């Protein structure tokens, strides 16, 4: 559907240049987004009608607690001042103190970040490998029984809430049927997940089950599209052996969109850990967030939400850049 008007673009448009420019642009957008996110998180605490401290503490607040809260939230300063003291606190490694127990937020959240990161990256790695492999196989056996079975299962599993998958695993593996794995991942406070790897199994398994179908579907679709493309037909008409058609011609063109989806699933995991950590009582930031929300522990909520959002933004940039580098140039040049 070429519009004849546009003069042919200069054929040898520089190769590295636009990507570098794009990376810079993505970074700039990322920084802006992060700033806006911090403003939103901060303002969210400001939209409370009336005295925020009372709103948080409820009607049976004692004057002492109200006063403490006001100081903690810097409610006695102007909005800009409050924002500034909060943000500068973030940059100096002092995101404030918990309202519940008065402990520094950083000390409470830091081991949880590490635990969640371990969980997310274990799940991401296993899920990506399994999803890509299954998706590629399903595409190569398109319309075969394996393809049908995986697509039906994938469809069913993508529909399920994480906590349903988690509960199903608990029922099957920990309580009702077998008792092979612990139903909760209780860790001593401040200790790290790798000290007891068996505690990771059920949370990780839940999340892997949840993300694999997405990656599988995308990989399959991208691979099918590549296998039905003109250049794959051309390669076959050139007498290229089938293994080479798949590995050299189809795969490199299918991988870029899949990278996007793998990245998206890391992002998804940032939300998915909340429920799964809660189910298994796994001491990560997700579980920390749920209890902070129950306790209305504003500084902890602010910090955890910001950490998750920052992870989201950074991961987004990384994904985009990798996907850009993996995208064959023709798709880009239109």
């Amino acid at each position, binding site marked *: *559907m070429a519009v004849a008007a546009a003069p042919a673009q200069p054929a040898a448009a520089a190769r590295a240049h*636009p*990507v570098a420019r794009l990376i810079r642009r*993505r970074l700039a*957008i990322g920084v*802006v*987004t*992060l700033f*806006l*996110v911090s403003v*939103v*998180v901060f303002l*969210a605490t400001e939209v*409370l009608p009336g005295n925020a401290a009372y*709103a948080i503490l409820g009607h049976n607040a004692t004057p002492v607690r109200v006063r403490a809260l006001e100081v903690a939230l810097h409610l006695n300063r102007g909005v800009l001042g409050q924002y500034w003291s909060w943000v500068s606190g973030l940059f100096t490694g002092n995101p404030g103190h918990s309202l519940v127990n008065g402990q520094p937020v950083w000390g409470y959240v830091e081991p949880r970040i590490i635990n969640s990161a371990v969980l997310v990256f274990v799940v991401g790695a296993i899920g990506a490998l399994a999803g890509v492999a299954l998706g590629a196989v399903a595409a190569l056996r398109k319309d075969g029984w394996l393809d049908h079975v995986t697509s039906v299962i994938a*469809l*069913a599993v993508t*529909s*399920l*809430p*994480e*906590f*349903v998958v988690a*509960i199903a695993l608990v*029922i099957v593996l920990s*309580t*009702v049927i077998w008792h092979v794995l612990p139903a909760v991942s209780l860790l001593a406070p401040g200790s790290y997940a790798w000290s007891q790897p068996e505690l990771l199994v059920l949370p990780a398994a839940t999340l892997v089950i949840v993300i694999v179908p997405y990656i599988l*579907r995308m990989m*399959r*679709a991208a691979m099918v*599209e590549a296998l039905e493309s003109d250049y794959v037909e051309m390669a076959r008409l050139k007498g290229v052996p089938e293994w080479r058609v798949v590995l050299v011609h189809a795969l490199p063109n299918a991988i*870029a969109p899949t990278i*996007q*989806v793998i990245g998206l699933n890391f*992002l*998804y995991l*940032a*939300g998915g850990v*909340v*429920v799964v950590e*809660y189910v298994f009582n796994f001491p990560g930031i997700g579980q920390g*967030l*749920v209890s*902070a*929300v129950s306790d209305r522990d*504003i500084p902890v*909520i602010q910090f955890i*939400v910001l950490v*998750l*959002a920052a992870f*989201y*933004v950074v991961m*987004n940039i990384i994904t*985009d850049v990798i*996907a*850009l580098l993996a*995208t064959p140039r023709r*798709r*880009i040049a*239109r």
Partner: protein
Amino acid sequence: MAVDAPAAPAAQPGQTRRIRRPQWGTLLSATRTPRGAIGLGLASLVVLVAVVGPLVAPNSPDALVTLAFGKPSGEFPLGGDSLGRDVLSRVLDGGRALLVMATCATALGVAGGAAAGVSAAYLRGVSDGIIMRAVDVILSFPQLVFALLLLSLLGPKLWLITIAVGVSHGPQVARVLRSATLDLSERDFVKAAELQGMRPVKVMWKEILPNLVSPLMVEAGLRLTYSIVIIAGLAFLGFGQPPPAASWGTMINENRDGLSLDPWAVIVPALLIALLTIGTNTFTDAFARVAIGVDRRPDEAALIEDLSQGLGE
């Protein structure tokens, strides 16, 4: 369905597949596919339970009538829950709010997201920039976290949960619709409308939107599934209807300590949620296959569009 220069006859097998016009017809033919029939059947079954359930429940959902985690018996076929309430009655009573909230959240998110996405793509320029930055910001919060953030401040009010979930859908819908609209706005029939001096709002409403019905419906189906997942998840985390009320998500959480005593108190609500989401998602998938006829759903296609657009500029 690009038809360029005189095309190869290999295009012909595809020619039998025409764009089906009346959308209800597409919906109908989706129900005739095996997937569509199964999906619709599962979803209707659960909706029936949720709607009719409260009318036929044998006991009051918050009456303490049996033992905590009491074994299933003739009188209480699914046993008792953590406080000794009748699980069956609570199951029958616990789905209605979920359905209503999920439907409202979906409608809100799809309508708002579609409006934002279509105008961003068609108007381009400053509107596009502002809308897409806002989308980026909301997208930076995982949906559940976004809802939790709002709830943490105002408390778990049902209307707030509905709005929070709806708003968190908006950006995703906007991205998908923006990408579909970008493609459409370059089509000549849109230019033809501009040459008639049509106002932009009218062009979007009369020329572009009718061509987005299929992706919109797929998107709505997808978002409905996610709304159910998130709202039930919030209830599971303890942010839902306040305690005495029955809700499937809450029941799973309340009763999981007694899994070895009365597993049905967990299994049945979990199964109902699962059947509902599988049903809606499967039907959506069947519809997408019939209406759009590709392996890739619009949300997945939008990803790739975004990728190539980022580089095109």
